[in-house]
């Protein structure tokens, strides 16, 4: 492994860490400018007077200065203590720990199925240009762009849960995976296909064609590796979108996942939870993107695009 490659990879790692810090700060600030805090929520249902609200704020540490709060939080977070949910008085690490598996499951499965579906259809369309595969790729593309995932989710619930009665609704894993998977496939299939075709036009490939190398070998041996960098870039985008996609699916199918936890906490003004979940989700995405970028650097440090 070349020195530049390792150096590049470390640089990416370093930048990822900086990003996480940046996100922490921005989330922190944003959540404090937003008017209306958890004390108001607690007060809105019961009988709090203004004086009592102030007292509660003090108890919860909301009256300290922002930098102070940030520092205390960060130090604790690094030790795994994300504080306590303002709304439920439960340790946040406990809530996150119980919500993590569902999101990881949903995310990982959707990613694997989606990428497999996308790559295979793109490949099929590239290898057999005159077959219906091209149409499949186009259809997937339009599907993922035009149809909101929650809409598809509703339709699938109607079909598979109510009409066919094949599966339950709450906690259902395969339906949301299907929905997100198709969506992901739609996101990558067409760009990938175009990249393959672009690569196929290159001089390098035309030489191989002239030499009589088989069509399939050309695609697999020569074109695909050059399409890899853009595939990695697409992966980055997909991961980013997945963070949002899981929120919708978790809400629709009643999963106890990080996405829903985040949404609930924002609507419930439970800022300590929001802070923790957003930073964790964002950190995961950043690190995943970093990983992708590192792989990219290791494969092709100069990032020269071949023409």
């Amino acid at each position: 492994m070349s020195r530049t490659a390792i150096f590049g990879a470390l640089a990416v790692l370093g930048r990822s860490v900086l990003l996480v810090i940046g996100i922490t700060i921005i989330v922190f600030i944003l959540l404090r400018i937003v008017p209306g805090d958890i004390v108001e929520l607690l007060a809105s249902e019961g009988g709090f007077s203004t004086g009592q609200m102030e007292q509660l704020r003090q108890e919860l540490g909301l009256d300290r200065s922002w930098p102070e709060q940030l520092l205390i939080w960060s130090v604790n977070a690094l030790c795994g203590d994300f504080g306590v949910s303002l709304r439920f008085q439960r340790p946040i690490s406990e809530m996150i720990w119980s919500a993590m598996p569902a999101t990881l499951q949903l995310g990982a499965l959707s990613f694997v199925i989606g990428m497999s579906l996308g790559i295979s259809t793109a490949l099929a369309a590239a290898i057999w240009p005159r077959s219906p595969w091209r149409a499949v790729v186009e259809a997937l593309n339009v599907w993922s762009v035009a149809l909101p995932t929650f809409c598809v989710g509703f339709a699938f619930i109607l079909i598979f849960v109510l009409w066919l009665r094949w599966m339950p609704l709450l906690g259902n894993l395969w339906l949301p995976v299907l929905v997100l998977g198709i969506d992901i496939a739609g996101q990558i299939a067409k760009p990938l296909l175009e990249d393959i075709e672009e690569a196929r036009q290159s001089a390098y490939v035309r030489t191989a064609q002239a030499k009589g190398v088989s069509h399939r070998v050309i695609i697999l041996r020569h074109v695909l590796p050059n399409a890899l960098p853009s595939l990695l870039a697409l992966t980055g985008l997909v991961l980013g979108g997945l963070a949002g996609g899981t929120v919708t699916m978790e809400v629709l199918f009643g999963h106890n996942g990080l996405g829903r936890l985040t949404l609930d906490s924002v609507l419930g003004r439970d800022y300590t939870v929001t802070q923790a979940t957003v930073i964790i989700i964002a950190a995961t995405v950043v690190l995943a993107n970093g990983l992708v970028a590192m792989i990219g650097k290791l494969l092709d440090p100069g990032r020269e695009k071949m023409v």
Partner: protein
Amino acid sequence: MTLRSAGRLETAPFKLALPVSIWIATLLLVGAVLVALVGPELYGLDPLAQNLRQRNSPPSVKYLLGTDHLGRDIMTRLITGLRMSLLVAVLALAVAAGVGVVLGLAASAASGITSRVFFGFVDLLRAMPGVLLALVLVAALGSGIGPVALAVGLTFAPTFALVAREAYHRERALPYVAAIAACGAKPMRIAFSHLLPNIIGSIVTQTAIIFPRCIVTESVMSFLGLGAAPDSATWGRMIAQASRFFETNPTAVMAPTLALAGLTLCVALIGNEARRRLDPIQRHLAR
């Protein structure tokens, strides 16, 4: 011959022989824009008028596509909604492209710390889950077209930034840039004065991709409870509200969904064709 035009690859002679599909798509798109501009005034019913006794009713002579859960005419709302959706999407795109391209180009042209800082912003935006970003912004700024457009726009800004960066690197490798640089132009100036016009192709393509996604994202936000004001009948809001009644009134959901899919298809087809004619690499290859 100025240095700017020297940079342009010669275009193939402009052929009017477009495939039929493109003609249809263009016609539909133009039609849609016309409808968006004057439709609501010409087509009779009030999009907000509720006929509570005829909720979720199927298509009829008076209500061409039936009514929604509040007894409002779906056809009218579809037409009004087109205008609203287009408005939100255009605003969001303006934000996305404006912020994204500027950030992307500036980040690419700059060097050292400045570049890293700019890219840091891009990565920050990209790492924040779009939904959450939207959530917080709408919570802080209130609902309404402005905040929603801002939220949606910022969500897609990184995409434009990345496209700008891709395009920048691609253009920079071309000979004319070296020529300009040799004349002493600074990277920033090169980026914004010379490269930008040649990058438009990629930006337009990206716009075609992102445009329908803006509409869909607004729909998701409505679903999650964050959308624009309830009066505005954006397609997104229609889909989100009608989804609850999918079983009893599928038309209410299908109409805006199919309309959206149709619009996407048209925009995508045209965008593809535009790219084939404008994108330097593609043009080069097409010869």
